[in-house]
């Protein structure tokens, strides 16, 4: 593929000097700087900074914004207080997932939607098409802003040293306006790694005007490096989200997967009014699902990959891996797969058809790691021990 055809983020100039680059969703993005394993471990044990500006950003505003979003998305935005956020799904009439989207309520009539990079155009067209009759304005501001994620048990401490506002009081999923290195940013206490941390929305930033994004990025790197913060690429982002049990749109779910099958029912609110896909999901709830997304941990050597068959102990194919990797934290193969509900119970022993041999695997709960030691709900101090 011609490199010139790829889109760039405002931080591209930093990445090309320091990272192995890769193509992702039409963008030229960093895959890793030092290596996936050290970057992954930095986020679990200290902190990491990611450029996620390739994600989309849509502003949805107007008196009809709440009603409109409650009609097109599965979660209940009326339950969102201003300056808070939640995970939601965009479904079609059949209940198939068009995208997973983070919804940030900035004010009573002002929302920010964060869709995936690969689905941005498709989502925008869908939203515009379904906005007829609603008093809303939808604006794609992806190309005029940057998005940087700072993740890990020491992310708060690093950012607080630079922030004009104390961030320690911001709850999980909460939002706050602050300044980092004198640049105004919207900080949300969210992320895609399983760890505590923030995602920073930097306005008025583009590849032609990268100064504000570069200032924020550089200040965080300098402040964080003494505590072990590393710049992290999309390689670590993928292994971190997999360990945390977060599905990736396009791999672990698509238009042929419903939220119930993908185990995302927590983001579907049946007690709100009508929404696109509701009838299909109600019917599936009554009928029961035929397959469920599960976590698989290999109990022997091997690395599961998307597309590999999952077999029952008798060797019958019962499903497929949708994403898999080597877990840098657990030092073994882990994967997500869809299997029939009767084989989805944690502890169920299954087989994965690797190339040329079968490896034993066990169904596990998400996240893959010990929640008392890792992730934002951890109860033990990071970097502790002797």
């Amino acid at each position: 593929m011609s490199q010139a055809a790829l889109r760039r983020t405002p931080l591209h100039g930093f990445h090309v000097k320091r990272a192995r680059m890769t193509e992702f969703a039409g963008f030229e993005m960093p895959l890793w700087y030092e290596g996936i394993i050290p970057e992954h471990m930095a986020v679990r044990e200290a902190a990491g900074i990611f450029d996620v500006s390739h994600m989309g950003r849509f502003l949805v505003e107007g008196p009809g914004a709440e009603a409109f979003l409650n009609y097109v998305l599965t979660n209940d935005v009326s339950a969102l207080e201003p300056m808070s956020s939640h995970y939601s799904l965009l479904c079609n009439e059949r209940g198939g997932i068009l995208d997973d989207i983070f919804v940030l309520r900035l004010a009573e009539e002002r929302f920010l939607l964060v869709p995936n990079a690969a689905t941005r155009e498709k989502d925008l067209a869908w939203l515009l098409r379904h906005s007829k009759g609603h008093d809303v304005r939808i604006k794609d501001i992806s190309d005029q802003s940057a998005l940087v994620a700072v993740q890990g048990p020491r992310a708060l401490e690093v950012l607080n040293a630079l922030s004009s506002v104390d961030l320690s009081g911001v709850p999980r999923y909460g939002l706050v306006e602050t300044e980092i290195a004198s640049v105004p940013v919207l900080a949300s206490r969210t992320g895609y790694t399983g760890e505590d941390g923030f995602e920073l929305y930097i306005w008025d930033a583009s590849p032609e005007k990268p100064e504000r994004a570069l200032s924020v990025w550089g200040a965080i790197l300098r402040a964080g490096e003494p505590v072990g913060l590393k710049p992290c690429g999309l390689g670590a982002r993928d292994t971190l989200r997999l360990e945390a049990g977060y599905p990736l749109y396009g791999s672990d779910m698509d238009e042929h997967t419903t939220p119930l099958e993908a185990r995302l029912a927590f983001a579907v609110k049946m007690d709100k009014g009508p929404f696109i896909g509701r009838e299909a999901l109600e019917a599936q709830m009554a009928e029961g699902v035929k397959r469920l997304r599960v976590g698989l941990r290999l109990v022997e050597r091997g690395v599961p990959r998307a597309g590999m068959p999952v077999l029952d102990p008798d060797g019958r194919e019962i499903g497929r891996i949708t994403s898999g990797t080597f877990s840098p934290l657990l030092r073994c193969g882990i994967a997500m797969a869809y299997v029939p509900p009767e084989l989805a119970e944690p502890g169920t022993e299954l087989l994965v058809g690797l190339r040329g041999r079968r490896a034993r695997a066990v169904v596990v709960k998400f996240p893959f790691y010990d929640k008392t030691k890792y992730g934002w709900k951890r109860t033990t101090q990071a970097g502790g021990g002797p």
Partner: protein
Amino acid sequence: MRVGDYEVPEGLYYTREHEWAKVLEDGTVLTGITDYAQKKLHEIVNIELPEVGVEVSQMQPFASVDSVKATSEIYAPVSGEVVEANEALLNQPELLNQDPYGQGWIARIKPASPEKLQEELKALMTAEQYAKYIEELEGS
């Protein structure tokens, strides 16, 4: 010799898929992946070795290595019977990164005949040719 960041030892034969082959004194052929391959793969965390006794054909996949990110096929540089596989790599796949031409060797192949081997070696590159090849890959 050295091309940029990559070591290309002389006396070995090379494939376009970045395997090397070294003809030993007893006529068997030691195989592995090149320094260029291990640097591109980065962080190798697993290998699937061929079974000893299996017959392989030149440029057919006979092993695979996993980096964190992806699985890559390893092609047999020459045909013959696999007479030895480097089982040390199962517990220490990082040897493929650390010492690709030494402790990171993958398998030893016994060709059907010296004549057949000589014929197949003609299809492989010398160190000089491989150096030029990766120079071109890096330049593009």
